[in-house]
């Protein structure tokens, strides 16, 4: 912490001394302030903008393959300027490119948007601000974390334009399909670039994660005990821990796959005859890769989801003007989910050929994880009960998230049941399930977070009316896209099918597929309302008041546009938990965390009265801390 303090001091000195030169204001030039910045707030915004860029690409891809699925007979000639040779002479989408689109959509959305875009943005932006720290534990590592992500983005983006197309074997990149160039055009250079990009991405995630963990543990301001942390921080903290433990396993899987692809090893390959020749690989196991992949893959679901849930906790409490119901139960369920997320991975593999006994074990473990998830959902609903609800766009997206989380979570009970999963595995039922429970939910959490913290990020308000329209169109759209997929799944439609019309038993449902596609296009279009609102408000929005949502957390005690170091004076002290909303007896319906109990005699509970007395001897406390 001391090093950061010194940095800040130097910074202020610099700005005084170098005031005559414009480039030297804020102790640096354009490059150090906005590009290779050490400031967690700038880095957070960098992640956000990159995440939004990827989200547009990822969702646009899904619109293209939805066109193929909803309108299989349509002439897609109008996409030729964009997709070139991937539209064949008859105006049809190339089946290989269809698979590439599906693969890239998954990869981009899961990793680039909902991991980097969500965790990267909000962990970076909010951790120091909400725990009362000047910056991250290591600003340099934090900067590296973004630039590794940027590099990884560049490689992945480049892979979209190569002649053989990007990786196309599904975002789970199972070998042998993704190990052998002969198996699919996307398994060549496209897959190589995918692996390089992911390796860089993992480096970025680890650099970020170590920083988040170190910062939360070490840089909490005075009085900010773990039981006074906002649930956002709990969520980011545990997310970083999960990421730190699971991403290296993906890295090892990727590394072994690289070996199999390029150096003739046989970790995952065995007894293969392809392209007219029998390969020399024997003894490997394709199922082993699936174990390694899902050892990250399943925790990844929670890496995506927990930050969204943390953001929701904060927003729902603030806008219900009520404490979050069951604060400790919420922490408990985050911890429970974190631990259990590591022991459920093989429920993705019930019919992969692994020992059915393992299937039994993972079925039991998986259904246990439903309990903490259910507790979270119930706690959100109870927080709304007898609240005084203010519907900001962020609040609407948070309520929407709870709804999607419940719907998607419930179908998890089907899929966690190995016997039912025999039928439903790899059908559209699964697509509906995970898009609702992690895709749309986490996306809603991200949007809620942007609407809620935009005033802090850019000092201006977003237009709430446009926010409402954006929410209702998106909410309706998401239900229209993903709910019908349950019916397709019950009818046994397999995933990742280029076309259903050539397949007699699946030839029905052109109407339902068309509905989904139309809904997808409209929902995509609705996102431009948000994009417009975002950029317009950045420059022309109403000037934000200091604490627009009358929130308790520390970030709202900073100036409207906080500089590097966040607080101009000393760091704020924390005296209470972050959820003192509508406390009986209090003057207003919120008491920020930095208000001492001694100043709120009228609303103190008996044990808080005791704490108020202790506050009067701050010096002895301080000496104790130093000792």
């Amino acid at each position, binding site marked *: 912490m001391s090093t950061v303090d010194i940095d800040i001091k130097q910074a202020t000195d610099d700005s005084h001394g170098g005031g005559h030169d414009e480039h030297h204001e804020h102790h640096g030039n354009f490059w150090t302030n906005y590009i290779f910045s050490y400031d967690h707030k700038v880095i957070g915004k960098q992640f956000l903008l990159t995440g939004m860029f990827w989200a547009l690409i990822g969702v646009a891809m899904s619109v293209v393959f939805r066109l193929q699925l909803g309108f299989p007979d349509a002439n897609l000639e109008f996409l030729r300027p964009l997709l070139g040779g991937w539209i064949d002479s008859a105006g049809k989408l190339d*089946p290989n490119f269809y*698979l590439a689109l599906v693969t890239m959509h998954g990869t981009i959305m899961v990793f680039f948007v909902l991991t980097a875009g969500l965790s990267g943005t909000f962990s970076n932006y909010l951790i120091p601000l909400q725990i009362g720290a000047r910056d991250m534990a290591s600003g340099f590592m934090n900067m590296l974390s973004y630039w590794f992500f940027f590099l990884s983005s560049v490689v992945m983006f480049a892979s979209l334009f190569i002649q053989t197309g990007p990786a196309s074997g*599904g975002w789970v990149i*199972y070998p*042998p*399909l993704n190990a052998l160039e002969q*198996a*699919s055009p996307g398994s060549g250079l496209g897959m190589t670039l995918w692996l390089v990009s992911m390796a860089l991405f993992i480096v970025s995630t680890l650099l970020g994660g170590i920083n988040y963990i170190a910062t939360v543990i070490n840089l909490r301001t005075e009085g900010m005990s773990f039981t006074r942390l906002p649930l956002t921080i709990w969520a980011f903290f545990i997310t970083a821990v999960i990421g730190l433990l699971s991403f290296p396993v993906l890295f090892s899987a990727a590394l072994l796959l690289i070996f199999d692809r390029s150096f003739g090893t046989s970790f995952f*390959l*065995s*007894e*293969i005859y*392809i392209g007219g020749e029998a390969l020399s690989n024997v*003894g490997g196991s*394709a*199922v082993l890769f699936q174990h390694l992949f899902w050892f990250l893959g399943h925790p990844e679901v929670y890496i995506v989801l927990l930050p969204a849930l943390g953001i929701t906790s904060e927003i729902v409490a603030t806008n219900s*003007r*009520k404490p979050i119901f*069951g*604060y*400790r139960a919420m922490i408990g369920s985050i911890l429970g989910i974190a631990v259990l997320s590591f022991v459920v991975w093989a429920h993705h593999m019930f019919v992969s*050929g692994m020992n*059915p006994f393992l299937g039994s074990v993972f079925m*039991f473990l998986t*259904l246990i994880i439903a*309990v903490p998830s259910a507790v979270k*959902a*119930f706690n959100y*609903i109870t927080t709304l*009960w*007898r609240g*005084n609800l*203010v*519907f900001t766009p962020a609040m609407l997206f948070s*309520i929407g998230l709870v709804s999607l989380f419940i719907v998607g979570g*419930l*179908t998890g009970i*089907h899929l966690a*049941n190995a016997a039912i999963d*025999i*039928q439903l*595995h*790899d059908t559209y039922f699964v697509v509906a399930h995970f898009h609702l429970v992690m895709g749309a939910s986490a996306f809603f959490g991200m949007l809620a977070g942007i609407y809620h913290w935009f005033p802090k990020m850019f000092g201006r308000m977003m237009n709430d*009316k446009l926010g409402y329209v954006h929410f209702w169109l998106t909410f*309706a759209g998401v*239900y229209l896209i993903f709910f019908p997929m349950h*019916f397709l799944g019950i*009818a046994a439609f*397999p*995933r990742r*099918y*280029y*076309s259903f019309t050539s*397949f*007699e*038993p*699946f030839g029905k*449902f052109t109407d339902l597929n068309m509905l989904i596609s139309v809904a997808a296009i409209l929902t995509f279009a609705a996102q431009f309302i948000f994009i417009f609102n975002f950029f317009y408000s950045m420059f022309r929005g109403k000037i934000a008041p200091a604490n627009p949502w009358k929130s308790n957390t520390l970030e709202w005690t900073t100036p409207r546009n906080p500089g590097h170091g966040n607080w101009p004076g000393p760091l704020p002290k924390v005296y209470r938990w972050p959820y003192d909303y*509508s406390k009986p007896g209090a003057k207003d*319906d919120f008491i920020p965390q930095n208000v001492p109990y001694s100043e709120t005699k009228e609303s103190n509970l008996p044990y808080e009265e005791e704490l108020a007395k202790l506050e009067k001897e701050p010096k002895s406390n301080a000496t104790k801390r130093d000792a």
Partner: protein
Amino acid sequence: MINVLIGIAALVLVVLLALIYRVFTLVQIAKKRETGEEPRVTSSNRINALLFIIFFAVLFGSIFWYSIAAKDDYMLPEAASEHGGAIDMLFWVTTGVVFFVFFVTHCLLFFFPYLYSYKEGKKAEFLVHDNRLELAWTVVPAIVLTILVVSGWTVWSEITDPAPEDSVEIEIVGRQFGWNTRYAGPDGKIGKHNFRKIDATNGLGLDFEADAANNDDFVANELVLPKGKNVLLKIRSRDVLHSVFLPHFRLKMDAVPGQPTQFWFKPIYTTEEMRQRLAEKGDPNAADFNYHLACTEICGSAHYAMSMKVRVLSEEEYAEWEKEQKPWAELNADYLAEKGIEISNMTSLK
């Protein structure tokens, strides 16, 4: 036509929203002038609260409507295998439980916004936690889940038990992009294979030198199953992962190169019987019905077209069909001669 209608509807919706927005901003400007101070919430708060109720009505209205109206479209015909009935039972019980929870939680989630939307001067209840309530909603889901998981586990264990001794063994091999089946022939044994023996003719890699059980094996391009007998599918793949999915039999198992997998089941309706049952239910396409096998593990460009017809015959018909089939070795005698492999006991086995 429908496209045009959808287009017009979307346009009307946009215009309507724009109009509503305009009216409300004007009303608010007028209000602000009257009172002189900015209120905590605007009339949008009430509208959003109301929209949750409308959303609830439309959402559940359309779910109920479609679930009933399109019942025959999305529900597969009844399970054509013995274990399939048990899976269906589990599925519908779980669906019932899940739908009940979905409905109840959404009643609360969508009506609370309406009931408790912001009122000036009102204070929210300072409710921090409630141990009894929290205990209840931890324990009740835990019990319900335990019941579901135990019943699921029972079915799963039965399905994945070792196949009965008397099962008919059929080998099914996936490749980019198609399936082949191999039957044991009169000796009841599927011969050994070796992936190094695979070539353009010997697509399944039958290893005659290693195993004479291959001599009478016959290969088909369809999956023919005997009704009422336990069938053990021996599943393997030649190149990449594939997955055997027989939706009507509620059966799925990946095909993994280098690691054979299996799944046993008992077909209970012949194709003909299933057609009759569908006809009785009034399905206009009943006469054309066929069982199908689909690939459900992404395997490359033609993944979506990797299907195979499945026929279930009565036991007598099956025996007859089996008799008509010629061993692969007999059909490819030239190839074997060329390779210098001598098949001595093929005819004697017949």
